[in-house]
């Protein structure tokens, strides 16, 4: 994919131009701001969450309206972390005002013997993944010339945890490693196709979410064995298609070194300092020049707690901390902006980028 960027910056760049430059460590007109407004967009046009997450026309209209209202610099097609799980057979619950979730009273994988029940599906035809593909297509059609659309793929181990149950999966990793690995491989093959389908629909980049690459959950070597070495093929396929790979992980203590080694993204969206970094200053010194930073606002504080003045100050501090990135920084929430959060705060983050993020 080739994106022409105006070199004369006397006028404000488009969001697409701004993000493309930041992803290359080239200073755009200002710090891009993309506070991961996904499900929260349903409230802009007054739709319920369950309709937003299942009807691509509603999601597209809502996300476009949210972008025009908030003026954020990028779409992320994170609908919920159960999209892939349903298509593999997991029953879901769709609350009217909250994110869809698996019905763990009825997990698809009830015992370790059930891992073999996981079979490949066609993401272009399965109900929920095809919905996300259509959302990508609609956003690109509506705004593709000016606003980047980033597709989203949850990692295979994450998907598996949504159809087995988190605790049971983690115990099975020790008790039944071969069965877990077999299912991870099956899911991963589908995810390759899912990523490619989003690219075919026009996604400017794909965000991969290897949630368990986090010291708050798994040992690094465990994550590498059970996800990284397998998920790598998805990132390779995306790069082979000429599209940038980004990573999102809102877990605590992300293994940046292992993520870069195996997934090799050009940017990482995250909520906490990397594993081994005691604070944001240390993190920025260690990593900001090695991989573009997307973050790092605390979504609950920004969405639920902070006044607008606090959001401005919080954003200013982040921009200041990541000046060391020399342009490779996108101001964002460290995880999805709270679907029930104060949308004005998302707009204030964009305003902060305009006020404090000029290069």
């Amino acid at each position, binding site marked *: 994919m080739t994106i022409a960027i105006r070199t004369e910056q006397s006028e404000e760049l488009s969001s697409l131009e701004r993000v493309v430059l930041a992803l290359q460590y080239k200073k755009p007109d200002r710090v891009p701001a993309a506070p991961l407004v996904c*499900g929260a967009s349903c409230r802009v046009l007054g739709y319920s969450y369950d309709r937003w997450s299942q009807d691509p026309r509603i999601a597209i209209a809502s996300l476009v309206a949210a972008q025009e209202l908030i003026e954020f610099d990028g779409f992320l097609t994170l609908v919920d972390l159960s999209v892939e799980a349903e298509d593999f057979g997991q029953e879901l*619950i769709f*609350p009217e*005002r*909250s*994110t869809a*979730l*698996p019905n*763990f009273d009825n997990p698809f994988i009830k015992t370790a013997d059930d891992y073999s029940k996981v079979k490949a599906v066609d993401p272009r035809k399965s109900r929920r993944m095809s919905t996300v593909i259509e959302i990508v297509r609609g956003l690109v059609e509506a705004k593709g010339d000016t606003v980047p659309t980033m597709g989203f793929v949850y990692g295979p181990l994450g998907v598996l945890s949504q159809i087995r*149950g*988190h*605790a049971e999966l*983690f*115990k099975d*990793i*020790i*008790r039944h490693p071969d069965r877990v690995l077999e299912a991870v491989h099956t899911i991963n093959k589908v995810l390759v196709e899912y990523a490619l389908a989003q690219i075919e629909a026009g996604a400017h980049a794909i965000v991969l979410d290897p949630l368990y690459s986090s*010291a*708050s*959950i*798994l*040992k690094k070597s*465990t994550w590498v064995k059970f996800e990284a070495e397998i998920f790598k093929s998805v990132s390779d396929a995306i790069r082979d298609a000429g599209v940038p790979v980004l990573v999102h992980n*809102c877990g*605590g203590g992300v293994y940046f070194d292992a993520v870069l080694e195996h997934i090799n993204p050009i940017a990482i969206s995250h909520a906490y300092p990397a594993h081994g970094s005691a604070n944001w200053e240390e993190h920025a010194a260690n990593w900001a020049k090695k991989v573009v930073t997307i973050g790092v606002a*605390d*979504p*609950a*504080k920004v*969405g*639920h*707690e902070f006044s607008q003045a606090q959001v401005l100050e919080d954003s200013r501090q982040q921009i200041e901390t990541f000046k060391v990135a020399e342009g490779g920084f996108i101001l964002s929430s460290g*995880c*999805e902006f*709270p*679907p*029930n*959060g104060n949308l004005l705060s998302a707009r204030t983050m964009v305003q902060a980028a305009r006020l404090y993020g000029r290069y």
Partner: protein
Amino acid sequence: MSADQEELFERLATAVFELDEALAAKLSQEVLDRGYDAWNAVEHGLLAGVNRAGKLFDEEEYFVPELLIAADAMYAGLAILRPHIKGHDSGFNRKVVIGVVQGDTHDIGKNLVRIMLEVAGFEVHDLGRDVPPRKFVEAAIALKADVIALSTLMTTTMERMGEVVSILEAEQVRNRFKVIVGGSPLSQQFSDRIGADGYAPKAAQAVELTKRLVGLVNAA
């Protein structure tokens, strides 16, 4: 305690710590077969083992899978020993009702807190995940609990915690219970706003907080 007892309890602790559920059950039965005190086996075997696992968790040698299996090993032994614990008084008799609030199924954090509270001697009643606010209140009243512990990992379900407090107030039973909250998106500010009694950012801190709130340790 005889050397034989000590050696058996040490093997029991090692079985838990080394994640061997079957061996923990087998050794617990051996404790009974030899006529040793069941509570001593719990304290010096099972709990010692899970405490060692917890220490390794803090040191990032063990992670969530290892801690969950160590807990399973502890529970396997406890199931055998518990019916034979006679007249034991852990020093306090405090009850905690714990669960993940409605709309959320992420229960790893809640499970870790439950394990650590049990190891600390609390009687913990786990309501599971996706628990409606009113169910917390009903269970706490029915069980005469001291503490209601609420967990969530999602910003969309945080407000359910405030609903629990509101129901307690509406039922005029708020002062009977301490309410604590925990989970990745939460903060002390949020806890204060909904009128909870305390917030713990980590599982181990939840235990200290609970002890403090029920008066088992002095307030900091």
